[in-house]
């Protein structure tokens, strides 16, 4: 491995950019393969670049054979990120549990009394409106968003931004009735029925959760499930298009 390669891998993580490092095992020749770019000695080999990009999509490192040469593809995808909108009681359980599951956790709430680091030790806390915070952070397909405030003027803009992005999970706390009203309000800002169907609401798996910690478990269970199914679907053999 070259020192420049090491630096590039660290930079990719900081920028939350997925990258695969392809290494030829016979002589340690390398290529750094991004979704839209490839660099290094092996980057001219289209078969290696294509395999590296596929490995990145399914998030799985593996050794492959290209023309008799063994190539190791090491996938570095950004860790999944959870953005919690609403620095409320449930968030105080959800944030540390998600961190334990190796999510990169951020809590967003414009209300200064709620969004404090004392209430959320060891977690990123942003005191801002969700849609503005999202814009600064940049939403991506390894991000999950959960809204917990119950307050339409805080939750709605967050859901609107989330549904116009490619985040892998959107969940919203609230009863079925609240959820139906939410659907009507969001329709007015251009969220179609199809788009709204992506929202998990009432949020979480139906495990009879009552306490904030139990609700946090049900939400995380659902996020884990959605993420696992998505990775399974991505790694399934593709059916050839007619």
């Amino acid at each position: 491995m070259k020192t420049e390669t090491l630096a590039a891998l660290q930079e990719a993580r900081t920028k939350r950019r997925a990258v695969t490092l392809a290494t030829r095992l016979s002589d340690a020749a390398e290529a750094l393969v991004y979704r839209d770019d490839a660099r290094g000695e092996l980057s001219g080999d289209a078969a290696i670049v294509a395999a590296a990009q596929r490995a990145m999509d399914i998030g799985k490192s593996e050794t492959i054979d290209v023309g008799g040469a063994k190539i190791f593809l090491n996938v570095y995808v950004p860790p999944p990120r959870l953005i919690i909108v609403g620095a409320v009681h449930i968030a105080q359980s959800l944030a540390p549990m998600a961190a334990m599951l190796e999510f990169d956790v951020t809590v967003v709430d414009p209300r200064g009394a709620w969004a404090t680091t004392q209430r959320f030790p060891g977690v990123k806390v942003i005191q801002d409106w969700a849609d503005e915070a999202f814009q600064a952070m940049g939403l991506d397909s390894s991000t999950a968003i959960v809204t917990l405030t119950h307050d339409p003027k805080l939750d709605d803009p967050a859901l609107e931004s989330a549904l116009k992005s490619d985040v892998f999970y959107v969940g919203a706390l609230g009863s079925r009735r609240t959820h139906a009203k939410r659907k009507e309000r969001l329709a007015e800002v251009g969220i179609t029925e199809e788009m709204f169907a992506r929202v998990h609401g009432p949020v979480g798996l139906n495990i009879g959760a009552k306490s904030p910690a139990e609700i946090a478990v049900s939400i995380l269970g659902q996020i884990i499930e959605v993420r696992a199914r998505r990775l399974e679907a991505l790694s399934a053999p593709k059916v050839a298009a007619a």
Partner: protein
Amino acid sequence: MSDALEVLDQVGKWKADGKGVAVATVIVTWGSSPRPVGSQLGVDDAGNMVGSVSGGCIEGAVVKEALDAIKDGKPRLLDFGVTDEQAWDVGLACGGKVQVFVEKVN
């Protein structure tokens, strides 16, 4: 994955301090091996380690090869396979097998 990035951070620091450094990576596993493909161990020229490529059993052997790789600059492919009977002795209690690639950071 965050694990692997911690390894790279430490390796980068060692390198910046002018140390000789090697990285070992699990590239193939068979059966129930303790660490998944992509797991990494960083080693400096004094034998200090960061990360892991197993539950702790093969690290000693990997460090030795890593020190040799730092000296001669050549990459290495190491196979560790154990029978169930040997498993307890070397620490791969599950009886898994792993292949580890060791290379110097240039």
